[in-house]
């Protein structure tokens, strides 16, 4: 049993960002930058046999910048929480709390994502109602900051490869929409990258039997700090809805979320004014 956390890089600049506590993993020549880190992970899974009892993770060079965690802290968290199938180190607590699931959050940033996801999951016979799918802190994973056993990765890779094949080989509207370019900060990226990023959260939400230990990021954006307890409350309401299926928890969730966003998100205030 071993913990194999690789940190990807593809040039000198990204190599300089690596934490020596992780295993450096070069995407040599970076032949398909359009797939971002998936190209590296895919190459690994196609070329290696995974050990059932071992954990694997594939982190970006920006791991420390995005999570404020070192390799030492990540390993220490895993050591202190033995026996989990999956360890997550997802940043962006606010996005996790303030959206019912990562796909609704994605729709907010990349218009059209929900329709793509619905079509894709219907295609693979996993119908999901994204209006009620819940990702709580336990199952929200951004940036693929996840360290997991093959029990998780097999499912993840099976789904990700279906996306890959559609985006690479199929002549269809879904193919076109997956390859459509969208803005991401100051750069342009294809929407398939953000779709792949969210598969981990879908797998975790759909397989509640996986034992997950999630490192909850303690740092919040400054504007949200006064609402830190409300962010927890939002997560609690999501969990209560999941366990009871009582609709009133969702109503309370959306009401509190509006209150939090009104207080903390200037863009939300502007858009609803």
């Amino acid at each position, binding site marked *: 049993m071993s913990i194999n956390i690789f940190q990807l890089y593809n040039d000198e600049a990204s190599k300089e960002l690596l934490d020596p506590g992780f295993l450096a993993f070069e995407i040599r020549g970076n032949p398909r930058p359009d797939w971002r880190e998936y190209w590296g992970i895919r190459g690994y899974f196609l070329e290696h046999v995974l050990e059932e009892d071992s954990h694997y993770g594939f982190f970006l060079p920006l791991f420390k910048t995005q999570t404020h965690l070192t390799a030492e802290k990540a390993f220490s968290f895993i050591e202190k929480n033995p026996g989990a199938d999956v360890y997550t180190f997802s940043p962006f607590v606010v996005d996790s709390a303030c959206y019912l699931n990562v796909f609704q959050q994605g729709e907010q940033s990349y218009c059209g994502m929900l329709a793509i996801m619905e079509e894709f999951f219907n295609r693979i016979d996993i119908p999901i109602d994204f209006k009620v799918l819940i990702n709580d802190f336990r199952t929200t994973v951004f940036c693929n900051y996840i360290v997991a056993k093959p029990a998780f990765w097999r499912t993840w890779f099976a789904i990700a490869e279906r996306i890959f094949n559609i985006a690479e080989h199929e002549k269809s509207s879904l193919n076109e929409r997956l390859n459509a370019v969208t803005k991401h900060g100051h750069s342009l990226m294809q929407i398939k990258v953000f779709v792949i990023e969210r598969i981990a959260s879908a797998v975790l939400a759909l397989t509640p039997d996986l034992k997950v230990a999630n490192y909850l990021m303690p740092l919040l954006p400054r504007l949200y700090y006064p609402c830190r307890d409300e962010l927890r*409350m939002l*997560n609690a309401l999501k969990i209560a809805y999941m366990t009871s299926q009582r609709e009133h928890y969702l109503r309370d969730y959306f009401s509190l979320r509006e209150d939090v966003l009104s207080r903390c998100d200037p863009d939300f205030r502007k858009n609803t004014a």
Partner: protein
Amino acid sequence: MKVNIFQLFYDKKSRKMLDPGFTPLEVVGNPRPDWREYWAIRKYFLKNTLRESDYYGFLSPLFKEKTGLESRQIFSFIADNPGGDVYTFSPSFPEAACYLNVFEHGNRCHPGMIPIMEEFLDILEIRIDFSKFTNDFRSAVFCNYIIAKPIFWNKWFTITERLFHIAERNDSQLARLLNKKTEYHKASLSMKVFIIERITSLLLALLPDLKVFDFDIQSMPWQVNSNYFAYRKEMVQLNALKIAYADSFDTEYLRIYFALRARVLQHCEAMECNETYINFFQVEESVTPAESDEEDPDLPWAPPRYENPTT
């Protein structure tokens, strides 16, 4: 599969309150009013063999008054939610939300309950930290308003019988504490009655695999201090925080729970009765129990005391 719901009665007055859709169960002569309804439930379990696939429930004559529900609603709730091991119809929304568990609530109303419970559970070799033990709406059941299969009742009866025999032998400090009178509104009842009432909630929390359908507690009639009515949303949030804690064991949820709970209690009652406790896990017996301003509807119908003909 048969649903056997008995409704207890003691005399003509309580008989008149029965819902004809339930099966009347007379507590003949009411020989041991100190055990309240447990005496009748116990007798039933000792004399009858339960069928594994059947459901059983034992409701008080006040069921309709406390829950606003008629027998047809109970049967249709069960029919609409097939496959449960347990169906609950607990009427106490604020009590279920505003206390981490039914024992914290009990300890506030009947100081000394938690230490007694801990001593009793020690005998059963069950270790529970009541300051972290949660009853949410699924598992907080007051008044024994529960319809369940033997998979539940067998465990319940095993525990209650241990308590029964300790109290009946009356040869230990624990027995004396169980039999000691505690305030219940303006009446005095033995602590054992309030502990027995809470064994259901203990078991439901300890047995998460039991499939429980809880009738929506928010639709129950408003019985307590009406100040709570304005805090319905907060009470739902309190319940969500308990569920989140039980799901994650993240103590931050408990911190937020107790902070919000304190605000609710301060607004709804603590200001009125000068309650100074932040939590109620350690309440000295000498402390005056918390009171609510409700008129206890059970009191007029408290089982009459008959002379035990054998003594």
